[in-house]
Protein backbone atom coordinates (compact mmCIF):
# COMPACT_ATOMS: atom_id res chain seq x y z
CA UNK A 1 0.00 0.00 0.00
CA UNK A 2 1.23 3.47 -0.66
CA UNK A 3 0.69 6.66 1.28
CA UNK A 4 -2.59 7.64 -0.42
CA UNK A 5 -4.15 4.22 0.17
CA UNK A 6 -3.51 4.39 3.88
CA UNK A 7 -4.94 7.91 4.07
CA UNK A 8 -8.03 6.69 2.20
CA UNK A 9 -8.41 3.70 4.47
CA UNK A 10 -8.11 5.85 7.56
CA UNK A 11 -10.58 8.43 6.27
CA UNK A 12 -13.05 5.72 5.16
CA UNK A 13 -13.00 4.12 8.60
CA UNK A 14 -13.54 7.47 10.31
CA UNK A 15 -16.44 8.30 7.94
CA UNK A 16 -18.17 4.95 8.48
CA UNK A 17 -17.59 5.24 12.22
CA UNK A 18 -19.09 8.75 12.28
CA UNK A 19 -22.05 7.54 10.21
CA UNK A 20 -22.74 4.80 12.74
CA UNK A 21 -22.34 7.23 15.60
CA UNK A 22 -24.73 9.78 14.09
CA UNK A 23 -27.16 6.98 13.36
CA UNK A 24 -26.92 5.75 16.92
CA UNK A 25 -27.79 9.19 18.27
CA UNK A 26 -30.59 9.40 15.66
CA UNK A 27 -29.15 12.55 14.08
CA UNK A 28 -29.32 10.86 10.68
CA UNK A 29 -31.66 8.09 9.75
CA UNK A 30 -30.00 6.24 6.89
CA UNK A 31 -30.15 2.46 6.85
CA UNK A 32 -26.99 0.39 7.31
CA UNK A 33 -26.80 -0.73 3.66
CA UNK A 34 -27.00 2.86 2.41
CA UNK A 35 -24.27 3.99 4.80
CA UNK A 36 -22.07 1.08 3.77
CA UNK A 37 -22.75 1.78 0.08
CA UNK A 38 -21.49 5.39 0.39
CA UNK A 39 -18.29 4.24 2.03
CA UNK A 40 -17.79 1.42 -0.49
CA UNK A 41 -18.26 3.82 -3.39
CA UNK A 42 -15.91 6.41 -1.89
CA UNK A 43 -13.19 3.91 -0.96
CA UNK A 44 -13.49 1.86 -4.17
CA UNK A 45 -13.44 4.83 -6.52
CA UNK A 46 -10.54 6.64 -4.90
CA UNK A 47 -8.49 3.45 -4.48
CA UNK A 48 -8.96 2.54 -8.14
CA UNK A 49 -7.86 6.05 -9.09
CA UNK A 50 -4.71 5.89 -6.98
CA UNK A 51 -3.84 2.30 -7.93
CA UNK A 52 -3.76 2.74 -11.70
CA UNK A 53 -0.31 2.20 -13.14
CA UNK A 54 1.28 1.51 -9.76
CA UNK A 55 1.49 -2.25 -10.20
CA UNK A 56 -0.90 -2.94 -7.31
CA UNK A 57 -3.23 -4.95 -9.52
CA UNK A 58 -4.80 -6.99 -6.74
CA UNK A 59 -5.92 -3.74 -5.13
CA UNK A 60 -7.20 -2.46 -8.44
CA UNK A 61 -9.32 -5.60 -8.90
CA UNK A 62 -10.71 -5.69 -5.36
CA UNK A 63 -11.28 -1.91 -5.22
CA UNK A 64 -13.35 -2.07 -8.40
CA UNK A 65 -15.19 -5.02 -6.84
CA UNK A 66 -15.89 -2.91 -3.73
CA UNK A 67 -16.96 0.11 -5.82
CA UNK A 68 -19.43 -1.91 -7.92
CA UNK A 69 -20.73 -3.67 -4.80
CA UNK A 70 -21.35 -0.22 -3.32
CA UNK A 71 -23.25 0.81 -6.45
CA UNK A 72 -25.33 -2.38 -6.26
CA UNK A 73 -26.14 -1.81 -2.58
CA UNK A 74 -27.06 1.80 -3.28
CA UNK A 75 -29.35 0.89 -6.21
CA UNK A 76 -31.10 -1.88 -4.27
CA UNK A 77 -31.57 0.43 -1.31
CA UNK A 78 -32.50 3.60 -3.17
CA UNK A 79 -34.95 2.21 -5.73
CA UNK A 80 -37.94 0.14 -4.84
CA UNK A 81 -36.95 -3.12 -6.44
CA UNK A 82 -39.60 -5.74 -5.87
CA UNK A 83 -37.30 -8.75 -5.61
CA UNK A 84 -33.74 -7.56 -5.00
CA UNK A 85 -32.64 -11.11 -4.26
CA UNK A 86 -33.34 -12.07 -7.88
CA UNK A 87 -30.57 -9.70 -9.05
CA UNK A 88 -27.77 -11.14 -6.92
CA UNK A 89 -26.60 -13.77 -9.41
CA UNK A 90 -26.44 -11.25 -12.26
CA UNK A 91 -24.82 -8.63 -10.02
CA UNK A 92 -22.10 -11.02 -8.92
CA UNK A 93 -21.22 -11.83 -12.52
CA UNK A 94 -21.35 -8.17 -13.52
CA UNK A 95 -19.15 -7.05 -10.62
CA UNK A 96 -16.53 -9.74 -11.32
CA UNK A 97 -16.63 -8.82 -15.00
CA UNK A 98 -16.00 -5.19 -14.00
CA UNK A 99 -12.93 -6.32 -12.05
CA UNK A 100 -11.54 -8.10 -15.13
CA UNK A 101 -12.29 -5.06 -17.29
CA UNK A 102 -10.30 -2.85 -14.92
CA UNK A 103 -7.38 -5.27 -15.18
CA UNK A 104 -7.55 -4.91 -18.96
CA UNK A 105 -7.63 -1.10 -18.73
CA UNK A 106 -4.57 -1.23 -16.48
CA UNK A 107 -2.67 -3.39 -18.98
CA UNK A 108 -4.26 -3.28 -22.43
CA UNK A 109 -1.87 -5.93 -23.78
CA UNK A 110 -3.78 -8.57 -21.86
CA UNK A 111 -6.81 -9.08 -24.10
CA UNK A 112 -7.89 -12.13 -22.11
CA UNK A 113 -9.13 -9.87 -19.29
CA UNK A 114 -11.28 -7.95 -21.77
CA UNK A 115 -12.74 -11.19 -23.16
CA UNK A 116 -13.34 -12.52 -19.63
CA UNK A 117 -15.09 -9.30 -18.65
CA UNK A 118 -17.29 -9.33 -21.74
CA UNK A 119 -18.03 -13.04 -21.21
CA UNK A 120 -19.24 -12.36 -17.66
CA UNK A 121 -21.24 -9.29 -18.73
CA UNK A 122 -23.00 -11.33 -21.42
CA UNK A 123 -23.87 -14.16 -19.01
CA UNK A 124 -25.05 -11.57 -16.51
CA UNK A 125 -27.30 -9.91 -19.12
CA UNK A 126 -28.70 -13.21 -20.37
CA UNK A 127 -29.39 -14.42 -16.84
CA UNK A 128 -31.43 -11.35 -15.96
CA UNK A 129 -33.38 -11.16 -19.22
CA UNK A 130 -33.94 -14.49 -20.98
CA UNK A 131 -33.13 -16.96 -18.23
CA UNK A 132 -34.60 -15.19 -15.23
CA UNK A 133 -37.49 -17.63 -14.86
CA UNK A 134 -35.20 -20.66 -15.00
CA UNK A 135 -35.09 -22.68 -11.82
CA UNK A 136 -31.29 -22.86 -11.80
CA UNK A 137 -30.98 -19.06 -11.72
CA UNK A 138 -33.44 -18.86 -8.86
CA UNK A 139 -31.48 -21.54 -7.01
CA UNK A 140 -28.28 -19.54 -7.54
CA UNK A 141 -29.98 -16.44 -6.15
CA UNK A 142 -31.22 -18.37 -3.13
CA UNK A 143 -27.74 -19.73 -2.43
CA UNK A 144 -26.25 -16.24 -2.74
CA UNK A 145 -28.89 -14.85 -0.36
CA UNK A 146 -28.05 -17.56 2.14
CA UNK A 147 -24.36 -16.68 1.90
CA UNK A 148 -25.14 -12.96 2.28
CA UNK A 149 -27.09 -13.69 5.45
CA UNK A 150 -23.92 -15.17 6.93
CA UNK A 151 -21.56 -12.42 5.72
CA UNK A 152 -20.13 -11.66 9.19
CA UNK A 153 -18.84 -15.24 9.37
CA UNK A 154 -16.98 -14.71 6.09
CA UNK A 155 -15.60 -11.38 7.31
CA UNK A 156 -14.39 -13.11 10.49
CA UNK A 157 -12.75 -15.93 8.50
CA UNK A 158 -11.17 -13.38 6.17
CA UNK A 159 -9.71 -11.50 9.14
CA UNK A 160 -8.33 -14.69 10.69
CA UNK A 161 -6.85 -15.61 7.32
CA UNK A 162 -5.07 -12.23 7.08
CA UNK A 163 -3.69 -12.64 10.60
CA UNK A 164 -2.43 -16.14 9.92
CA UNK A 165 -0.96 -15.45 6.49
CA UNK A 166 0.82 -12.22 7.28
CA UNK A 167 4.62 -12.19 7.15
CA UNK A 168 6.21 -11.87 10.54
Amino acid sequence: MNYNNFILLGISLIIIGLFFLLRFFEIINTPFTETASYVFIFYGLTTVFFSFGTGYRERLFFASFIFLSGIMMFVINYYEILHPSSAIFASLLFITGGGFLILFIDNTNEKIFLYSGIFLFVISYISITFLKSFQIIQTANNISMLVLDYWPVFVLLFGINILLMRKR
Partner: protein
Amino acid sequence: MDEQKPKEDEFENSLNNFFEEEIVEDEFVEEPRQKSLSKIKKGSLIAGVCTGIANYFGIEPVIIRVLFAVSIFLGGWGIIFYIIAALLLPSELTTDENSNIEIHENSYAKTIAGSLFVFIGIFFIADNFGFMNYLFFFGLPKFLLLPVTMILTGGFILFKINDFLPVKSGTKKTKFYRSRNDKRLLGVCGGLADYLNVESNNLRMLWIIFSFLTIGAGIVLYIFIAVFTEKEAEPELELQ
Protein backbone atom coordinates in the same frame (compact mmCIF):
# COMPACT_ATOMS: atom_id res chain seq x y z
CA MET B 1 69.52 -29.34 18.19
CA ASP B 2 67.37 -32.33 17.22
CA GLU B 3 66.76 -33.21 20.84
CA GLN B 4 65.74 -29.66 21.67
CA LYS B 5 63.11 -29.35 18.95
CA PRO B 6 60.51 -31.79 20.37
CA LYS B 7 60.83 -30.03 23.71
CA GLU B 8 60.14 -26.66 22.10
CA ASP B 9 57.12 -28.11 20.33
CA GLU B 10 55.82 -29.56 23.55
CA PHE B 11 56.21 -26.21 25.28
CA GLU B 12 54.44 -24.42 22.45
CA ASN B 13 51.55 -26.91 22.52
CA SER B 14 51.11 -26.57 26.24
CA LEU B 15 51.06 -22.78 25.91
CA ASN B 16 48.43 -22.97 23.19
CA ASN B 17 46.31 -25.36 25.25
CA PHE B 18 46.54 -23.04 28.22
CA PHE B 19 45.33 -20.01 26.23
CA GLU B 20 42.56 -22.04 24.54
CA GLU B 21 41.30 -23.14 27.93
CA GLU B 22 41.37 -19.52 29.05
CA ILE B 23 39.32 -18.51 26.05
CA VAL B 24 36.82 -21.35 26.60
CA GLU B 25 36.47 -20.38 30.23
CA ASP B 26 35.89 -16.78 29.22
CA GLU B 27 32.96 -17.88 27.06
CA PHE B 28 31.22 -19.30 30.10
CA VAL B 29 31.84 -16.25 32.26
CA GLU B 30 28.93 -14.33 30.75
CA GLU B 31 25.67 -15.62 32.17
CA PRO B 32 22.52 -15.55 30.05
CA ARG B 33 20.41 -12.50 30.77
CA GLN B 34 17.19 -13.13 32.56
CA LYS B 35 14.02 -12.10 30.76
CA SER B 36 12.08 -9.36 32.44
CA LEU B 37 8.59 -8.14 31.69
CA SER B 38 8.86 -4.85 29.86
CA LYS B 39 7.34 -2.84 27.04
CA ILE B 40 9.01 -3.40 23.70
CA LYS B 41 8.74 -0.50 21.31
CA LYS B 42 10.03 -2.27 18.24
CA GLY B 43 7.18 -4.00 16.47
CA SER B 44 4.60 -2.56 18.80
CA LEU B 45 1.28 -1.13 17.66
CA ILE B 46 0.47 1.23 20.51
CA ALA B 47 2.67 1.18 23.61
CA GLY B 48 4.41 -2.19 23.21
CA VAL B 49 2.66 -3.94 26.12
CA CYS B 50 1.40 -6.89 24.03
CA THR B 51 4.80 -7.32 22.35
CA GLY B 52 6.50 -7.23 25.74
CA ILE B 53 4.15 -9.81 27.28
CA ALA B 54 4.48 -12.03 24.19
CA ASN B 55 8.26 -11.79 24.36
CA TYR B 56 8.22 -12.67 28.05
CA PHE B 57 6.16 -15.82 27.49
CA GLY B 58 7.83 -16.66 24.18
CA ILE B 59 4.67 -16.57 22.11
CA GLU B 60 3.44 -14.51 19.18
CA PRO B 61 2.30 -10.94 19.94
CA VAL B 62 -0.84 -11.42 17.84
CA ILE B 63 -2.17 -13.97 20.37
CA ILE B 64 -1.94 -11.41 23.17
CA ARG B 65 -3.45 -8.73 20.92
CA VAL B 66 -6.40 -10.96 20.05
CA LEU B 67 -6.92 -11.70 23.76
CA PHE B 68 -6.97 -7.96 24.46
CA ALA B 69 -9.40 -7.43 21.57
CA VAL B 70 -11.70 -10.14 22.93
CA SER B 71 -11.51 -8.52 26.37
CA ILE B 72 -13.05 -5.36 24.86
CA PHE B 73 -16.19 -7.38 24.15
CA LEU B 74 -16.30 -8.72 27.67
CA GLY B 75 -16.54 -5.52 29.61
CA GLY B 76 -13.64 -3.58 28.18
CA TRP B 77 -11.48 -4.07 31.29
CA GLY B 78 -8.57 -5.14 29.11
CA ILE B 79 -8.23 -1.49 28.07
CA ILE B 80 -7.81 -0.40 31.70
CA PHE B 81 -5.26 -3.19 32.25
CA TYR B 82 -3.42 -2.11 29.11
CA ILE B 83 -3.23 1.53 30.20
CA ILE B 84 -1.98 0.58 33.68
CA ALA B 85 0.60 -1.80 32.20
CA ALA B 86 1.73 0.86 29.73
CA LEU B 87 2.27 3.28 32.61
CA LEU B 88 3.95 0.88 35.03
CA LEU B 89 6.11 -1.38 32.87
CA PRO B 90 9.65 -0.25 32.08
CA SER B 91 10.54 0.33 28.44
CA GLU B 92 12.97 -1.84 26.54
CA LEU B 93 13.80 0.24 23.53
CA THR B 94 15.61 -2.40 21.49
CA THR B 95 14.88 -6.02 20.73
CA ASP B 96 18.12 -7.72 21.69
CA GLU B 97 19.48 -11.18 21.03
CA ASN B 98 17.34 -12.88 23.65
CA SER B 99 14.18 -11.64 21.99
CA ASN B 100 12.77 -14.40 19.84
CA ILE B 101 10.33 -12.16 18.00
CA GLU B 102 11.20 -11.28 14.46
CA ILE B 103 9.25 -8.27 13.39
CA HIS B 104 8.84 -6.92 9.92
CA GLU B 105 7.20 -3.61 9.31
CA ASN B 106 5.15 -5.30 6.59
CA SER B 107 3.04 -7.06 9.19
CA TYR B 108 1.67 -3.86 10.77
CA ALA B 109 -0.95 -3.15 8.13
CA LYS B 110 -2.03 -6.78 7.98
CA THR B 111 -2.31 -7.00 11.75
CA ILE B 112 -4.52 -3.92 11.83
CA ALA B 113 -6.64 -5.04 8.87
CA GLY B 114 -6.98 -8.62 10.15
CA SER B 115 -7.89 -7.50 13.67
CA LEU B 116 -10.45 -5.04 12.29
CA PHE B 117 -12.09 -7.71 10.13
CA VAL B 118 -12.16 -10.12 13.09
CA PHE B 119 -13.73 -7.39 15.24
CA ILE B 120 -16.37 -6.51 12.63
CA GLY B 121 -17.09 -10.21 12.10
CA ILE B 122 -17.57 -10.91 15.82
CA PHE B 123 -19.68 -7.78 16.29
CA PHE B 124 -22.09 -8.53 13.47
CA ILE B 125 -22.26 -12.25 14.28
CA ALA B 126 -23.32 -11.20 17.78
CA ASP B 127 -25.76 -8.66 16.34
CA ASN B 128 -27.29 -10.86 13.64
CA PHE B 129 -27.53 -14.05 15.64
CA GLY B 130 -28.76 -12.59 18.94
CA PHE B 131 -25.60 -12.83 21.07
CA MET B 132 -25.46 -9.08 21.69
CA ASN B 133 -26.64 -9.54 25.28
CA TYR B 134 -23.42 -11.40 26.06
CA LEU B 135 -21.28 -8.40 25.12
CA PHE B 136 -20.39 -5.63 27.57
CA PHE B 137 -18.62 -2.32 27.13
CA PHE B 138 -18.12 -0.46 30.42
CA GLY B 139 -21.87 -0.45 30.86
CA LEU B 140 -22.23 1.80 27.81
CA PRO B 141 -24.55 0.99 24.88
CA LYS B 142 -22.95 -1.89 22.98
CA PHE B 143 -23.68 -0.38 19.61
CA LEU B 144 -21.14 2.34 20.42
CA LEU B 145 -18.44 -0.34 20.18
CA LEU B 146 -18.41 -0.40 16.40
CA PRO B 147 -18.31 3.34 15.60
CA VAL B 148 -15.81 4.05 18.38
CA THR B 149 -13.51 1.25 17.20
CA MET B 150 -13.72 2.37 13.57
CA ILE B 151 -13.00 6.02 14.37
CA LEU B 152 -10.10 5.05 16.64
CA THR B 153 -8.65 2.65 14.04
CA GLY B 154 -8.99 5.25 11.28
CA GLY B 155 -7.33 7.87 13.46
CA PHE B 156 -4.62 5.42 14.44
CA ILE B 157 -3.84 4.62 10.80
CA LEU B 158 -3.59 8.33 9.96
CA PHE B 159 -1.50 9.01 13.07
CA LYS B 160 0.96 6.12 12.57
CA ILE B 161 0.98 6.20 8.78
CA ASN B 162 4.76 6.35 8.54
CA ASP B 163 5.13 3.11 10.49
CA PHE B 164 2.96 1.30 7.98
CA LEU B 165 4.70 2.57 4.94
CA PRO B 166 6.95 0.31 3.05
CA VAL B 167 4.58 -2.63 3.00
CA LYS B 168 4.78 -4.38 -0.33
CA SER B 169 5.94 -3.29 -3.73
CA GLY B 170 3.56 -3.63 -6.63
CA THR B 171 4.20 -6.33 -9.19
CA LYS B 172 6.19 -5.49 -12.28
CA LYS B 173 4.90 -8.47 -14.24
CA THR B 174 3.50 -7.38 -17.56
CA LYS B 175 2.44 -10.73 -18.99
CA PHE B 176 -0.22 -13.09 -17.70
CA TYR B 177 0.60 -16.77 -18.19
CA ARG B 178 -0.81 -20.01 -16.93
CA SER B 179 1.58 -21.05 -14.21
CA ARG B 180 3.83 -24.00 -14.81
CA ASN B 181 4.97 -24.56 -11.22
CA ASP B 182 2.07 -23.34 -9.10
CA LYS B 183 -0.84 -25.26 -10.57
CA ARG B 184 -3.55 -27.66 -9.51
CA LEU B 185 -5.43 -28.09 -12.81
CA LEU B 186 -4.39 -25.86 -15.69
CA GLY B 187 -2.42 -23.20 -13.83
CA VAL B 188 -4.92 -20.35 -14.31
CA CYS B 189 -5.25 -19.46 -10.62
CA GLY B 190 -1.51 -19.83 -10.05
CA GLY B 191 -0.76 -17.57 -13.02
CA LEU B 192 -3.39 -15.01 -12.03
CA ALA B 193 -2.14 -15.02 -8.43
CA ASP B 194 1.38 -14.39 -9.70
CA TYR B 195 0.12 -11.59 -11.97
CA LEU B 196 -1.91 -9.96 -9.20
CA ASN B 197 0.80 -10.60 -6.57
CA VAL B 198 -1.53 -12.42 -4.18
CA GLU B 199 -1.53 -15.78 -2.37
CA SER B 200 -2.49 -18.46 -4.91
CA ASN B 201 -4.40 -20.65 -2.43
CA ASN B 202 -6.56 -17.70 -1.36
CA LEU B 203 -7.37 -16.97 -4.99
CA ARG B 204 -8.24 -20.62 -5.60
CA MET B 205 -10.58 -20.60 -2.62
CA LEU B 206 -12.28 -17.43 -3.88
CA TRP B 207 -12.61 -18.95 -7.34
CA ILE B 208 -14.26 -22.06 -5.90
CA ILE B 209 -16.72 -19.92 -3.89
CA PHE B 210 -17.42 -17.83 -7.01
CA SER B 211 -18.04 -20.98 -9.08
CA PHE B 212 -20.34 -22.34 -6.40
CA LEU B 213 -22.36 -19.12 -6.18
CA THR B 214 -22.66 -18.78 -9.94
CA ILE B 215 -23.67 -22.40 -10.51
CA GLY B 216 -20.60 -23.27 -12.54
CA ALA B 217 -20.01 -20.01 -14.43
CA GLY B 218 -16.65 -19.79 -12.67
CA ILE B 219 -15.67 -23.18 -14.09
CA VAL B 220 -16.63 -22.09 -17.60
CA LEU B 221 -14.61 -18.89 -17.12
CA TYR B 222 -11.65 -20.95 -15.89
CA ILE B 223 -11.70 -23.13 -19.00
CA PHE B 224 -12.21 -20.05 -21.19
CA ILE B 225 -9.12 -18.36 -19.75
CA ALA B 226 -7.10 -21.59 -19.87
CA VAL B 227 -7.88 -22.06 -23.59
CA PHE B 228 -6.93 -18.51 -24.59
CA THR B 229 -3.89 -18.04 -22.35
CA GLU B 230 -0.38 -19.23 -23.07
CA LYS B 231 1.47 -21.45 -20.68
CA GLU B 232 4.49 -20.03 -18.87
CA ALA B 233 7.74 -20.68 -20.76
CA GLU B 234 10.01 -23.38 -19.42
CA PRO B 235 13.03 -22.01 -17.56
CA GLU B 236 16.15 -22.32 -19.69
CA LEU B 237 18.70 -24.73 -18.27
CA GLU B 238 22.24 -23.50 -18.03
CA LEU B 239 24.48 -25.83 -19.94
CA GLN B 240 27.86 -26.32 -18.44
